[in-house]
């Protein structure tokens, strides 16, 4: 147990932990919104994120080709902007598809939540496998050669050819904060603020809160709950697209099961912060990222997940509704 190491490097571990946690937070927003409105664990949200990461890589390959290049963040902004748009679009599309195929029939029937979870698990496997079989699927329509830069070796790691090299901006303590760090943390904060304002100020946001609070009364008041549910999934997908872009900037590679572990962590973060609570998702995500780093520092990286889950259990025991506790439906003045 190396506490000395932790204290000596606490700034570096905290900032990199926040950057890691920001991505958790953005994905957690998707989980928390769907849960807030439908009380459903959208198990397949991890695949929504994963498709976003592939969209980023594909766009980069499309515009840049497959030759490897190392560039700074500034010079990659154009291509990354296009990638961001593509990721948001694809993730949102997958999210809407998911809602239509895997959830809507069950919501209409009023099926128990457990069944919706099974449907989600099945959808999660299916989506991940479709990505892992894309070379074969392309083969069915005879396109595997034309699209080989995008689909070949489907189960292998798929990397974005542009390697974003972070530039040091300014030091905090003995750690040099980089532009990528700022981008990631800033983006998560900005997205959360935007989403919070959307939910609180706009008509659509009121609809979401209404359905979250009481679906039947909301319907009686003229809120189209199907549209609201679609909107919820759409927003979750857009957030996941942003997360996917930031992830690809930081990590640079993805594969068809990249969403799985991250999804579990993000869901843990959502529960940690208070499921159904948007700010809770942000706090939970950032906290989880930092705790993982601290846990790695003190106990060794092999224990970092154990630390994260133990933290979750402890918080749930002491405060069963999560850190911030409030649900999406509770009106705030």
């Amino acid at each position, binding site marked *: 147990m190396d506490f000395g*190491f932790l204290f*000596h*490097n606490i700034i*570096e*571990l905290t900032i*990199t*932990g926040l*950057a*890691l946690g920001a991505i958790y937070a953005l994905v957690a927003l998707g989980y928390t919104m769907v849960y807030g409105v439908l009380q459903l664990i959208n198990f397949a949200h991890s695949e929504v994120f994963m498709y976003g990461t592939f969209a980023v890589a594909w766009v980069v390959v499309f515009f840049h080709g497959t030759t*490897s*290049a*190392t560039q700074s963040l500034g010079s990659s902004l154009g291509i990354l902007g296009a990638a961001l748009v593509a990721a948001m679009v694809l993730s949102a599309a997958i999210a809407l598809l998911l809602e239509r195929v895997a959830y809507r029939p069950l919501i209409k029937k009023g099926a128990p939540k457990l069944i919706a979870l099974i449907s989600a698990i099945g959808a999660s496997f299916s989506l991940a496998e479709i990505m892992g079989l894309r070379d074969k699927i392309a083969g069915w329509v005879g396109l595997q050669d034309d699209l080989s830069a995008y689909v070949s*070796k489907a*189960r*292998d*790691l798929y*990397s974005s050819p542009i*390697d974003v*090299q*972070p530039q*040091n901006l300014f030091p905090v303590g003995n750690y*040099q904060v*980089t532009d990528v760090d700022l981008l990631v943390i800033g983006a998560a904060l900005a997205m959360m603020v935007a989403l919070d304002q959307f939910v609180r100020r706009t008509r659509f946001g009121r609809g979401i809160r209404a359905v979250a609070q009481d679906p039947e009364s909301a319907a009686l008041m003229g809120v189209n709950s199907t549209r609201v549910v679609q909107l919820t999934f759409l927003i979750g997908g857009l957030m996941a697209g942003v997360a996917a872009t930031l*992830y690809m900037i*930081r*990590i*640079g*590679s993805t*594969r068809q*099961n*990249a969403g*799985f*572990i*991250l999804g579990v962590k993000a869901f843990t973060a959502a529960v940690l912060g208070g499921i159904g609570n948007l700010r809770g998702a942000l706090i939970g995500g950032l906290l989880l990222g930092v705790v*993982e*780093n601290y846990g*790695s*520092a003190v106990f*060794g*990286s*092999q224990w*970092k*997940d154990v630390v994260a889950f133990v933290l979750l259990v402890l918080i749930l025991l002491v405060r069963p509704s999560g850190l911030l506790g409030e649900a999406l439906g509770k009106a705030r003045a």
Partner: protein
Amino acid sequence: MIRSTLVRALAVTAALGLSVTACGTTNNGTTSGSKSTAGAACGKNLAFLGAETGDAGALGLNMVGGIKLALDEYNKKHSSCKIGLKEFDSQGSPDKAPALATQVVNDSSIIGLVGPGFSGESLATGKTFFEAGLPSISPSATNVTITQQGWTTWHRVIGNDDAQGKADATYLTSTGGAKKVYVVDDAQDYSKGLATVVKTALGASAAGSDEIQVGQTDMSAVVTKVKSSGADAVFYGGYYTEAGLLVKQLRQAGWKGTFMSGDGAEDPAFVKAAGASAANGAVLSAPAAPAPADFNSKYKAVNSADAGLYSTQAYDAANIFLGALDAGKSTPEDINKFIGSYTGTGASGPISFDAKGDVTATTIYAYMVKNGALDTANPTPIK
């Protein structure tokens, strides 16, 4: 009534069963003596047991490709007495392997096994093959403990982790000139085994160690530990995905030391995971010499894909079995004895086996990443 129908149905089935068993028995009999003509082995099969689908499927397919190349060459020379291949996909997990092993040993057309592919499967099935007396040669399972189990039918054509780890430690401290080496692994059997050997061999030069998990993508804590330890070299035990991500994040953080890893990372995909500039200068060791120049073209002609890691080993393993057939051996016992006394040079280097089943001579080669590509043709042998 359901009841009488059920009873009637049962009675009919029982009667059918009894009457029909009188029809005959299949009794393949034991192969008596040893027919010294290779004709006794015609139409038989080699078996392959390993991961053909799933995340590690690419490696299994490399091995199958090597076997197919060997069989293709053999069958061309023996067009009246061909040998086939039966593949058993374990998906890389040791859970299904015992049932597959039973299937293999119950198939009397199988004369030998090239495999199992991974160490976990080997440990789970070694006893089954040993009790059945079926000889096996693994092209890729490198765990040291497998050959310590007393399974005289088990062999491998690849050096084990002991040899590789010691060579790697030597390389880092002498050729690499490193004073402090930080060792990381991904807590898997192969990875931890290799990393432990390296750490022990490094002795005082080991600056610290950490274990990540497979599938982990954010290495920030490890990077902080490496930088803080003042290490000028990192050894990573594990596979190319995490190795590439680790070296990428190390370089992003401004660390300038030497990065080394073992045969699990010795793959062009390492460069893709790391990005060309981060991968440059990395050293990847493997207990295999580069394939002979024409190997890849021959491989491609048979398999329509490039050869990969373990293709040459599988090719050599299959050829040893085929050599036994050429020498007139056809019973499992004779084939096993042939393997034990085999000496030759294959596409992966010189091969002969010691009493436990390990290859006697292993040279570990260091492959460098230069100019954004893994140089697979000119490695340096580590003395």
